[in-house]
């Protein structure tokens, strides 16, 4: 059986034009997806059922037992952490917020170690952006700054920017210019009309120089700025001002390098400045397929996009204090529920030391690095493969992922709802 218009649950591009061929309970082939998406959709060896750590080994337990274990763990914890959420659907994220509120825990998502600084910049200066289709149909200039879509978001260029059909462009591929700004010559840099190579840590200065040029203060620019020549800076500024529609896409190369949220603030202010001359937009290249959804859900439910602490009953937000890495590094939390992410593969050693000392329950279809830190792991259906649910694309467009297979695995939402119901019962007693 062929399923059409499948939504790829891999990256923030959330491509929804995938064709999947299914035989029985297996995906046998995938069309239109990139290599990353194909690998995810084809699946790998999943865990059979929930497991409980038993001495040096694992013991199989039932879903009921696993859910009970997690509910008890969260109820008895003084400062529980509920972390992850970017690799699951919005409906599950909503239950997670209710759980955190009930146990007065901390709920945080992967953006605190990803585009968190971008969000801080937006909270200072706002965000002039647009949906991907606006860029596809109009942009004659696309800038990738500190991002390498060919490797990380392989279909971004073909579906939404450089190679995509555009209503207002006769021949989109020839009519669009691409600027790549990075510290090294990436795959994406190879296709750029202009490659701007910045010395590591020099983004802020280059953005400031461009802002000065756009404001007509060219005389203040030295011969080189962070390794970029004055001539090239002028060329880039002119390309920007001369464009009918310019779009900046930035990645972690700008967000997580020295300067952090100030880099993003500077980039946004450059775009606001350019908006006085022509049309310009800026957007983050979000990683997980539903990391933006976790920000959205947290925001309408709690008021804040990530790092929410309910320990005082109200929702309290102070990134750097109420974010997962900080809570773990300070050895504050005494239990952790991990959903739809793999912190052991990404967090600093100090955090993992603490994670090893506290009870941890993970919801994940596959064994991963975090499995080694778990007391219980509960395998779930994969959103977009054997579970439906809402995901938000990197530009905020919400799409309902399709279910292409029927399996016996419960979804994240199902498991979490059962956990929450047990917790509510216990608390009402």
């Amino acid at each position, binding site marked *: 059986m062929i399923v*059409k218009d499948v939504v790829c649950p891999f990256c923030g591009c959330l491509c929804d034009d995938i064709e999947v061929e299914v035989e029985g309970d297996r995906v046998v082939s995938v069309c239109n997806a990139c290599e990353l998406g194909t690998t995810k959709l084809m699946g790998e060896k999943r865990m059979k059922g929930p497991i409980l750590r038993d001495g040096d080994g694992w013991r199989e337990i039932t879903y009921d037992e696993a859910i009970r274990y997690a509910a008890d763990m969260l109820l008895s914890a003084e400062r529980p952490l509920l972390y992850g959420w970017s690799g699951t659907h919005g409906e599950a994220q909503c239950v997670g917020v209710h759980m955190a509120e009930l146990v007065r825990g901390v709920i945080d998502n992967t953006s605190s170690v990803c585009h968190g600084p971008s969000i801080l910049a937006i909270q200072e200066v706002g*965000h002039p952006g647009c*949906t991907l289709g606006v860029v596809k149909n109009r942009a004659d200039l696309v800038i990738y700054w500190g991002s390498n879509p060919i490797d990380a978001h392989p279909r971004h260029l073909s579906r939404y920017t450089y190679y995509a059909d555009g209503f207002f462009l006769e021949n989109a591929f020839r009519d669009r210019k691409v600027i790549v700004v990075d510290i090294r010559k990436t795959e994406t840099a190879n296709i750029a009309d202009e490659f701007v190579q910045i010395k590591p840590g020099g983004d802020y200065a280059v953005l400031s120089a461009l802002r000065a040029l756009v404001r007509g203060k060219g005389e203040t620019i030295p011969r080189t700025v962070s390794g970029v020549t004055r001539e090239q800076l002028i060329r880039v500024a002119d390309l920007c001002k001369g464009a009918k*529609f310019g779009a900046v896409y930035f990645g972690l190369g700008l967000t997580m390098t020295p300067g952090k949220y100030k880099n993003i603030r500077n980039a946004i202010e450059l775009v606001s400045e350019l908006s006085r001359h022509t049309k310009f937009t800026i957007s983050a290249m979000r990683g997980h397929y539903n990391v933006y959804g976790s920000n959205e859900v947290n*925001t*309408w439910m709690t008021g804040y996009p990530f790092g929410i602490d309910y320990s005082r009953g109200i929702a309290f937000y102070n990134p750097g204090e109420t974010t997962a890495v900080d809570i773990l590094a300070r050895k504050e939390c005494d239990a952790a529920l991990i959903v739809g992410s793999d912190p052991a593969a990404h967090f600093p050693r100090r955090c993992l030391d603490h994670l090893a000392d506290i009870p941890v329950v993970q919801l994940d279809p596959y064994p991963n690095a975090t499995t080694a830190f778990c007391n219980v792991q509960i395998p779930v259906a994969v959103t977009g493969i054997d579970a439906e649910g809402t995901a938000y694309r990197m530009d905020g467009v919400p*799409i*309902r992922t399709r279910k292409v297979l029927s399996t016996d695995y419960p979804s994240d939402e199902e498991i979490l709802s059962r956990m929450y119901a047990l917790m509510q019962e216990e608390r009402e007693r």
Partner: protein
Amino acid sequence: MSELLIRNACVIDPLKGINAETMDIAIRDGKIVEDVSSAAEVIDARGALTLPGGIDSHTHICGTKVNFGRYMSPEDMRAGRTSRCGPMHATSGYSVPTTYGNSYRYSAMGYTTLLEGAMAPLEARHTHEEFLYTPLQDTMANTLFDGNWGIMEAIRDGDTRRVAAIIAWTLQAVKGFGVKLTNPGGTEAWQWGKNVSCIRDPVPYFEVTPAEIITSVVEANEMLDLPHSVHIHANNLGTPGNYTCTLGTLGLIPDLNPKRQTLYATHIQFHAYGGSGWKDFCSKSEPIVRFVNMRPQIVIDMGQVMFGRTTTMTADGPMEFNLYRLHHEKWSNHDVELETGSGIIPVLYRRKNLVNSIMWAIGLELALLTESPWQCLLTTDNPNGAPFVKYPEIIALLMSKKYRDAEFATIHPDTESRVPLPAIERELDWYEIAVMTRAGQAKALGIQDRGKGHLGLGAEADVAIYPIRIDETDPSVDYERVIEAFSRTEYTIKRGRVVSRKGKCLVDGNNATFWVRPEVSDDYDMEKDPDFIEKFDRYYTVRMRNYPVQEEYLNRNRCIETEAEI
């Protein structure tokens, strides 16, 4: 079966012609009925003012731009927070509260039905997701068509029936309720960084004018027999001298529907400005209201400004950019492919600022000068003019000349020479307030036949009992009591259940979403239209099959089916 009897209620129910009669209200299974058994639960209202549940026909509470207003404003989130308490979840936010915050605060004020004023079709799923977490009000969404490519092309081809067909397909696909035009043509121009100045400026490339968009969409709206009229946020919002543009817009509208208005013109306060610049900025509420008073086909809402901090958010992207250049605060913008856009900036309306003082006066003038309260509804364009929690103060200002004068003495001294407000003696009565906050809103939305906005037999049992006796209160003097009473009901009853008591919400409700599905002939079914499908596939970034909002996103699904002429 659940039964409830409200005894000794002092009822004002304008749609049923009831004005301050003391009576009992019987409720069975969520509906108003003739009588109930002796087993019914009884509430003694003790002569307190009892109204149909409040309806807000233009508010921004759910969806992409509202949530972005929260996302970018942790300072606003900190400005209003409560912790979990009984069935109430924690809330955050003052001008853009979280969904629970909106729902609880509206419920405490007796509101049971809300219309989200602007939903981009492509992002409709987001609005519906937030509706699911707005548990204590029924919801519906105005759907944006101001920059819709398919519609502008059909208008260029002179094909109004196709305009109607595209609206019909989109509304049923995105579970939308009404047709919204926000700065028609301007949001498309803004995707090139441009705008249209008024109704005769052509939209770049599409070569249609806002006037053509408005007249065609109004005609299409009636072809589809939609419950609500076209709902417009006119061009040129917020600029000095824009009242002529507003008059031009209103002048385009014929009287096409005997049951309701043909055009709902929202937040007219922002469109009633005189002057050639900020220096000679002044009120032009009088010419606007004179025009409206003569035309039953127009209903307006106030868009009242109240002093203090708030967040402005609208689909009108270019207007927000202009505001950003005035205020230099943070600015967000979000254009939506083939459809519309949006912008957000925080603002502070100050008494010491002359322009802000004049804006405050204009909103009140519109309500006081419009002869029929059915034609001017009470809103702040929440949160653009002020957060909705300011409604009780606005009610008191409309009911008390004394209160208005007291406030007027605190605003910018030059205001007096720029506005007619000080000379207006009118004080609205309880009945008029009931029209402006529920009955008129239900009629304008076309939902009175769905049992909304009144307490007649068979109506939805949405009731608000306010802790005030109108026979013992002189609102022109006791305005503080009026504010207090409208801020917090004694009981808010939703679908026959007490959901809020003295400001505390008692249940975790389950909202209903109203949406429309116009029945069109096969020839006008866009699902099967090759040209529509081809353009969709080529220029949208979402597949046509993945675009419609599934019924999973509706708690209680209230589909309104209409017979279209096409």
